[in-house]
């Protein structure tokens, strides 16, 4: 008799999802899916709203990465306005986005994944959480909390709120940076450097002990995509898209937001409310790709900051060509954090950072606009259409988690097929399947969006579990 293993909910994620694993009569895995079970609907209820409301409206999608939505949304609005924002405003937004990346990555690495990395994937789940980390290695717990506070404090200083800040608007930001705030952020930097070095040193010591997981945690050839500067360094707020293949060859480069729909398509599957993005020239699902920390490091030649560049060099020595195992997302995430701290310091030394000109103004000059930015977990696109009065008539969001969706599902299947044999599994094995998803740090509240008519499949089950009826749309 066939059997289904259900992991519901998948724990230590941002949002709610579940995993189902189908076994054949011999108890071997035939298929597995990662389901995102919540639906949101932001694209629909923003219709009819003035376009300039979109950044603050869209930021409510998520409590973890609202800044990325603010930035991508503001950029889409600026495309509608046909304006270029002042240099200082662009730098301040970049700093805000990096601060968010640092705090979000700290949450993912320290709060959600470090219990597995420190205590072991087979350790007692009753202790496999942040409390266990605090008891076993308090300096790691303190480093995580310190980095979270570093990012959140900067967000609060700039945007006046730790979660769902305002400040970023179409045209720039609402107010310039005050000298006292600049000095306050500068004073936070030494502790942030110290905390990320603790984490990086520790991770590099223990990474080799996870060699067997590295082999089967979404370890397969795929495309990688992210934003990059003209000098081939990592970029979080501006830049253009680059896509590389599994061997590292560049197959798309310099793709600006206005052109992203030429190369990115979206598919839907009946088992998830998250869309599945793909590279159009290869079709779906062959054109599936990965975004986020691993992709950013795979596509870039440099980080553009001295300490992170040293780390990137070591990282790239782990493989010939792009690193394929999603386990390496953890390492890449820490390098991202180091880069973020360094880049914030660089931005604060910009002689124009206190400049008062931080906002450009205009009305509707185009009826469609798109913006893109790097969210902590990968590239994010907002695309809007408006009428002559600037009211939204259509909106679409392409979220990082949707872009990683196919790779997450493939990764879950790969791990399940490797670990579950003859119907035998342990809690530690199921935790490994969950941990594959955690490497991507998916943000499920961000990712749940309708596109066209979502497929719907309802199964009516008797109390015995027998299938009584099905309805499909």
């Amino acid at each position: 008799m066939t059997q289904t293993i259900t992991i519901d909910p998948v724990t230590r994620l941002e949002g709610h999802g579940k995993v189902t694993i189908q076994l054949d009569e011999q108890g071997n895995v035939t298929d597995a899916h990662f389901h995102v079970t919540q639906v949101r609907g932001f694209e629909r209820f923003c219709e009819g709203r003035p376009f300039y409301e979109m950044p603050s409206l869209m930021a409510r999608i998520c409590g973890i990465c609202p800044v990325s939505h603010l930035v991508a949304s503001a950029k889409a609005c600026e495309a509608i306005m046909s304006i270029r924002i002042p240099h200082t405003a662009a730098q301040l937004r970049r700093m805000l986005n990096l601060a968010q990346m640092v705090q979000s990555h700290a949450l993912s690495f320290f709060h959600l994944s470090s219990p597995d990395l420190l205590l072991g994937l087979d350790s007692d789940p009753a202790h496999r959480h942040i409390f266990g980390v605090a008891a076993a290695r308090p300096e790691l717990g303190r480093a995580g909390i310190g980095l979270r506070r570093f990012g959140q404090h900067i967000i609060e200083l700039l945007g006046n709120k730790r979660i769902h800040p305002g400040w970023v608007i179409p045209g720039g930001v609402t107010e310039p940076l005050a000298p006292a705030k600049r000095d306050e952020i500068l004073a936070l930097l030494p502790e942030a450097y110290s905390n990320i070095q603790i984490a990086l040193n520790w991770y590099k010591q223990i990474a080799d002990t996870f060699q067997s997981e590295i082999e089967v945690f979404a370890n397969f050839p795929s495309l990688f995509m992210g934003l990059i500067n003209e000098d081939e360094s990592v970029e979080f707020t501006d830049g253009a898209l680059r896509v590389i293949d599994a061997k590292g060859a560049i197959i798309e480069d310099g793709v600006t937001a206005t052109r992203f729909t030429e190369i990115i398509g979206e598919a839907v599957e009946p088992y998830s409310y998250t869309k599945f993005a793909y590279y159009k020239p290869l079709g779906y699902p062959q054109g599936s790709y990965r975004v986020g920390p691993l992709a950013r490091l795979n596509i870039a030649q440099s980080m553009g900051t001295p300490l992170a560049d040293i780390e990137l060099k070591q990282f790239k020595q782990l493989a010939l060509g792009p690193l394929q195992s999603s386990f390496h997302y953890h390492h890449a995430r820490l390098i991202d954090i180091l880069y973020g701290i360094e880049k914030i310091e660089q931005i604060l030394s910009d002689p124009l950072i206190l400049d008062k000109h931080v906002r450009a103004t205009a009305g509707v000059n185009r009826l469609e606009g798109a913006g893109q930015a790097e969210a902590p977990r990968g590239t994010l696109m907002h695309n809007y259409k408006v009428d002559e009065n600037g009211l939204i008539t259509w909106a679409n969001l392409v979220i990082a988690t949707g872009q990683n969706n196919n790779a997450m599902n493939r990764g879950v299947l790969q791990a399940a097929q490797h670990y579950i044999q003859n119907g035998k599994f342990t809690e530690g094995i199921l935790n490994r399947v969950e941990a594959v998803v955690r490497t991507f740090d998916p943000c499920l509240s961000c990712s749940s969006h309708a596109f066209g008519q979502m497929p719907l499949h309802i199964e009516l089950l008797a109390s015995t579990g027998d299938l009584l009826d099905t309805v499909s749309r």
Partner: protein
Amino acid sequence: MGAEPIPCLILACGNTLREDDGIGPRLAEWAAEHWRSDVRIRILSRQQWTPDLASDIAAAQSVLFLDCSIESNPGCAAVHPVHPATARSGLNTHHFGAPELLSLSRDLYGAMPRTALLLTVGAASLEFHEGLSATVQAALPRAIDLLKSAVCDLLSNTGATSQSHSA
């Protein structure tokens, strides 16, 4: 963590969009206005308590947690002592109560407030709605009296000298 320990930290929790769940933030708002010039008191209000707050707690000589309760009778306001959690099973990253925060503060920073109290008000309704239910609204004066009294006790226990602006 700041260099100078704060004599009294008031830490509120609740969602003001879920009716009586907003009692903690509502009391924190009152406290912020009432003790706005009192440097001995620091007030933080959050929709949910997270592990990051452990460092704030470790830097405080005393702490007063403010929250609604679904176990107390609706409108019943009470103050209880809080001790660090000992049973750690079943924890998740989406909810930390006052005992868990105290134990995290101790484990991570080796420091904990000398005294920790929890002021709760029993919820009558947690529906999607801004504002408090009539039952909890009626209990607000009693809750404020308890809040004033608890802060007064905590400050006297820490030996913090009085401030001209404190009431």
